[in-house]
């Protein structure tokens, strides 16, 4: 099997086994209701994780995601509840602001040659701080559009509901996969993650690609913020703290190499679902502290980092090549 497919297969296998174990213990977990809620409850994380997948594939990291989600929520709440704008207008403005924000981080990373870690850390403080300056409190959103969207669901046989926001996550995953695997831009992202020096010598527009990657990540974080605001019907400056770390975990558990160059958008989807499964299991169990989620995620992450090490270092091509 192709080397880069192995972590993806491992993720899928672990998800299947974990789900089977969960269903054996709680048969009711195998229902359209649980599956539908899976998508809805993890939609904002999934959308942010798609952006994070691009960033990590290119060999970077984006720590500002959670803060951008929080900022977007507050911005929308303020624009809708205080300024009286239509939510769709507020959404467009939030996406534009986030796009400019991400592009600026991309510019700084490329032209100032500052590690993405540092730049996006600064971005995180800026966005979180900006949200808190606008308001310290949770701002509720009462708008008929919000009620309308939350009523938009598809009924599934067995009593489950497929919500608008769950579907939008699936759509974004599909679009993300097409961009990553089928376009020139996607191949440039992988090229940057593989070897930035080679990439620039091969004519990859490094500056443009870097800016686009971070703009994309922030735009998806903004969409994630929109989904989060639809989900909670409020904007709160301290919302989604640490979501960037969950997104990174989902990407890595989904089989993307943390150093970039290898991975699949589909893997991230399974990664997000696996995280959701762990959470749902703990809710079903009822006796376990919710902190067990963190412990399980920690174990999974560690497992996948070791697995990647084994796959990508043990079979380093250079050794084989030397003898060939």
């Amino acid at each position: 099997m192709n080397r880069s497919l192995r972590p993806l297969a491992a993720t899928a296998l672990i998800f299947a086994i974990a789900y089977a174990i969960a269903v054996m213990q709680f048969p009711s977990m195998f229902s359209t209701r649980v599956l539908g809620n899976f998508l809805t409850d993890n939609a904002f994380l999934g959308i942010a994780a798609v952006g994070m997948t691009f960033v990590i594939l290119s060999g970077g990291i984006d720590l500002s995601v959670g803060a951008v989600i929080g900022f977007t929520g507050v911005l929308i709440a303020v624009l809708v509840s205080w300024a009286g704008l239509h939510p769709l207008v507020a959404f467009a403005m939030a996406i534009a602001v986030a796009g400019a924000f991400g592009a600026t981080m991309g510019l700084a990373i490329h032209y100032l040659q500052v590690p993405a870690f540092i730049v996006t850390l600064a971005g995180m403080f800026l966005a979180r701080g900006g949200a808190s300056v606008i308001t310290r409190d949770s701002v509720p959103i009462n708008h008929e559009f919000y009620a309308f969207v939350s009523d938009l669901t598809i009924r599934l046989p067995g009593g489950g509901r497929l919500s608008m926001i769950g579907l939008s996550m699936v759509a974004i995953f599909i679009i993300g996969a097409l961009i990553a695997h089928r376009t020139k831009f996607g191949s440039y992202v992988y090229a940057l993650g593989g070897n930035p020096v080679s990439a620039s010598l091969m004519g990859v527009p490094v500056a443009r690609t870097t800016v686009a990657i971070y703009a994309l990540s922030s735009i998806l974080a903004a969409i994630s913020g929109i989904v989060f605001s639809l989900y909670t019907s409020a904007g709160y400056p301290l919302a989604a703290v640490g979501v960037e770390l969950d997104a990174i975990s989902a990407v890595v558990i989904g089989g993307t190499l943390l150093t970039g160059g290898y991975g699949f958008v589909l893997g991230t989807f399974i990664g997000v679902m696996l995280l959701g499964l762990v959470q749902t299991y703990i809710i079903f169990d009822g006796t376990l502290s919710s902190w067990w989620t963190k412990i399980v995620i920690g174990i999974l992450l560690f497992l996948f980092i070791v697995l990647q090490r084994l796959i990508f270092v043990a079979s380093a091509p250079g050794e084989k090549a030397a003898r060939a």
Partner: protein
Amino acid sequence: MPDQQYALEARGIVKIFGNHVALDKVDFGLRPGEVHALLGENGAGKSTLIKILTGAYQPDGGEVLANGAVVTLNNPQHAQTHGIGTVYQEVNLLPNRSVAENLYLGHQPTRFGFVDRRKMERDARAVLARYGLNLDPSSELGAHSVAVQQIVAIARAVELSGKVLILDEPTASLDRNEVERLFDIIRDLKASGLAVVFITHFLEQVFAIADRVTILRNGKLIDTKSLDDLTRTDVVRLMLGKDIAFSGATMLEENRPLGEVLLDFKGYGKKRSVHPFDLTIHKGEVVGVAGLLGSGRTEMARIMFGADAADEGSVSVAGKPTSITSPTDAIAHGFGFCPEDRKAEGIFGDLSVRENIVIALQGKLGWFSALTRDEQMEIAGRFGESMDIRAASLDMPIKLLSGGNQQKVILSRWLATDPAFLILDEPTRGIDVGAHAEIVRTINRLRDEGLALVVISSELDEVVAYSSRIVVMRDRELVAELNGENINPGVIVQAIANHRDGAQA
């Protein structure tokens, strides 16, 4: 128009870095359908010239002409549009992507905005077939051997440019069969009218494949000649700038009684790095190592020091068989190593002179017997004085010192560990005349104190001046050991250039 004979031409190229003239009015002409070797020792200006021809650098003077017309090359991509493609020493492709994508990245065929992978792989298969490669274009590039990757890189360069192909040390990591395969491809490309620039340190390969040769030395053009008119010795002489007829003034030290045997390497070597060699080193002896760059000199030094572990042969220290598989082993036996690339492998640029001096001693002492600051100052001060290290303060960062003073600090670092055996790789490269003399004096003093030294140097006069014996490396093999009174730079040049029977084509 005589210009029209050149596919690519450089006229009077000048390139200055700071106050160092890297290229001084260099002319270079490349005809279609020829393989043109570019030779010169490190620092001769080869890579600077290549970077100008590929648009990576802009010349400070002179002009570049493609097909007789003056062109300004802004960057490698721009050079590509003028038909100039380059393949670098390390394969600059993407091992994480498919072979087909590596061939076409940035130029993928698209349909409705999406990459048409099927067409790309079909095209790739056809291109690879022309290079005698029958492999799956959708396979990961990293899964293939370096030789195959190198061929893919050439295929990409030819596909995207198509007139001039610059090969910068393409054979550095290939074995003989792979080199032969590469040469077949180069011959085919040449027959199809491509102009090829070939850079290598292997003279055998130059004579096997090249039609003409241009030799650079210290940023100056020495000569461009047809290889039919040249012998190996001529080429080496032009590269090193030693006029054999007039040298011979310097002699080796007269034979002196040898000290006891300190080190005995038997059949010591490492696959793909250095052929097994035998070398006995006595106390109070300086063994000079001569050879062209890339001849395996540095690799030999690294194996001796355990920086790369040998995979065959044995070594004994003072008569006792032992094994040296890491620098820690070597240091425990009293070895020291001043590497060639001082900035990358020698100094800790941001640490102070004092810290740079005591670090090897501290490493030897271990974690639990830390040197106090006073002890450090005392040691650093002692060497600062005896080695005449010129620094405003021993607490200033070493990167602010001149190359010569940095070298003295590294020497001091090892001398502080009270070594029995020192390996110096190009100890005098890139340092000023005063420091140069100081280091040569130190080498002589250490020998008289009973240390064993191995000194690698491209400065043949210098090697002859302080060595008791000289070993000559060629093609990663120890090919000669020169002893006695009649050793002069001329003899060494002869030994370096000597044609080996059944040598690689």
